[in-house]
């Protein structure tokens, strides 16, 4: 595996520096080298939106810093939760006195570090409330929602939470909207090739050529089954068969679809899958209100796709419609 890095142990540092230089109109560094913030954060009178997570998921997480999106982000090592200190510093950077909504994904490390950060923030007088994304259907049965991982649905949670905050909502309203967003969102991924953490140097899981792993996690966490690789159309059907009954989605629903590549999947292939996804949804009477197709939440150079569907109501629609200006999601 030919990597384009300097010292493999400092890829996150180098990446963050480059990211700030390239996007100085949107993001700014903070005193904590692992925390980036929106150039205008804290935004006066606005609830702060914070997230964070392991690195290697570009544009997540730092790519969603921006106008009507996140105010500050804590960046961890590759695939590893940021420190409690980084989450705390992100909360500090985001808080304008209106409180902070920390919207993150359900992983053991993130849970612990956010928990410790929230405790410290409270001591400083910063009110933080959290929403924990758990949109990945494949990661636990429906009876154990609290065990499910957060995956690409987080992007929609940030979009909704970020928009709501910019509309002037208070902390409880922002939290309620973000919670509603994720509660109405279901995702599943299919992996077709693994990825390699630069400092490790070899893939830490395998997907045999000719096979695909349905339900795979963003860090290669094993999925629900390994199957011979199918056609793009069959993959679309299989993913929808997992997602649609889970919420469930029904005829008449209006939805947002987010179809993300896992990193190395050509965008062409993502559109081939999307073509069938929309066709099947149309057959079922489910209307795509808005589609996002592209590399929205990746895992280094893993191959495969994740499909995310969010059921809309008027409030969620209003939030989805709002313009956004972040590196990973720009909407005019």
């Amino acid at each position: 595996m030919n990597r384009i890095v300097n010292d493999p142990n400092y890829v996150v540092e180098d990446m963050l520096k480059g990211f700030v230089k390239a996007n100085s109109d949107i993001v700014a560094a903070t005193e904590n080298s692992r925390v980036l913030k929106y150039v205008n954060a804290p935004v006066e009178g606005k609830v702060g939106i914070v997230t964070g997570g392991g690195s290697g998921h570009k544009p997540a997480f730092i790519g969603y810093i921006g106008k009507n999106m996140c105010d500050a982000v804590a960046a961890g090592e590759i695939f590893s939760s940021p420190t409690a200190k980084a989450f705390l510093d992100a909360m500090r950077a985001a808080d304008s006195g209106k409180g902070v909504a920390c919207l993150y994904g359900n992983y053991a490390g993130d849970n612990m570090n956010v928990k410790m950060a929230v405790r410290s923030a409270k001591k400083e007088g910063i009110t933080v409330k959290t929403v924990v994304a758990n949109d990945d259907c494949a990661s636990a049965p429906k009876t154990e929602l609290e065990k499910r991982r957060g995956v690409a649905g987080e992007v929609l949670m940030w979009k909704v939470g970020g928009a709501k905050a910019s509309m002037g909502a208070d902390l409880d309203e922002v939290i309620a909207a973000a919670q509603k967003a994720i509660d109405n969102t279901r995702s599943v991924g299919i992996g077709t090739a693994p990825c390699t953490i630069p400092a490790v140097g070899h893939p830490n899981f395998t997907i045999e050529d000719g096979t695909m792993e349905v339900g795979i996690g963003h860090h290669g966490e094993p999925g629900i089954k390994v199957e011979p690789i199918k056609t793009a159309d069959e993959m679309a059907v299989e993913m929808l068969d997992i997602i649609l009954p889970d919420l469930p989605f029904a005829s008449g629903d209006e939805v947002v679809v987010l179809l993300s590549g896992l990193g190395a999947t050509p965008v062409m292939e993502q559109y081939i899958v999307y073509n069938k996804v929309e066709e099947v949804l149309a057959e079922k009477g489910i209307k795509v209100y808005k589609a996002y197709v592209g590399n929205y939440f990746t895992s280094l150079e893993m191959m495969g796709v994740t499909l995310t569907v969010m059921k809309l109501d008027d409030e969620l629609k209003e939030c989805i419609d709002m313009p956004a200006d972040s590196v990973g999601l720009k909407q005019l």
Partner: protein
Amino acid sequence: MMNFKNSEAGSVVLGLIKTIQDNKDFLSEVDGKIGDGDHGINMNKGFTMTGEKLAGKEFNMSEGLSILGATLLEDIGGSMGPLYGVFFDEMSMACEDKEEIDADVFKDMICNAVDGVMDIGGAKPGDKCLLDAMVPARDAFCAALEAGKDFSAALDDLKVAAKEGWQSTEGMIAKIGRASRLGERSRGVLDAGATSSYLMLTSLADSMQALMK
């Protein structure tokens, strides 16, 4: 002699650092089987940073443990930052005002440390995690003292129990952490965190026993 001076025991922390550095690849390999393969990297980073902070400094055991705990908490994310951060922080606090480290002091150290891990992580033995090495080790140490064994003999019991506890994770289904999503597929593989716990408990005990000579 069954105890040793806090001020002369900074080497205990250096032993821990070397243990993690030596086992970096092994820990990642174990983690790679049912986790994301970075346990060795995460641990090595925190322990090596601690080593750099300690280099050329005078420090006693409790100070060394305190710096180790704080470094993990502030500079290392993942699960290991908070879990081992609390572990070593609690150990340090339990001995920071002691000049002599004896069996009773160490009993407080290990008991508080294990409690701290359970508190922050919400896991329990049998979940296939750190605690599967830590809890049996602590229990064996306490039981040995109860049974009248001396500090060094109790540490021997601790080491045996830590090893057995670690090995028992192979047969377990993960109930916590990334691997918990695997269900049956997580069985048949050792737990990465239990592996590092076993290695560090062994290192701790060995270092202390050496100080008693």
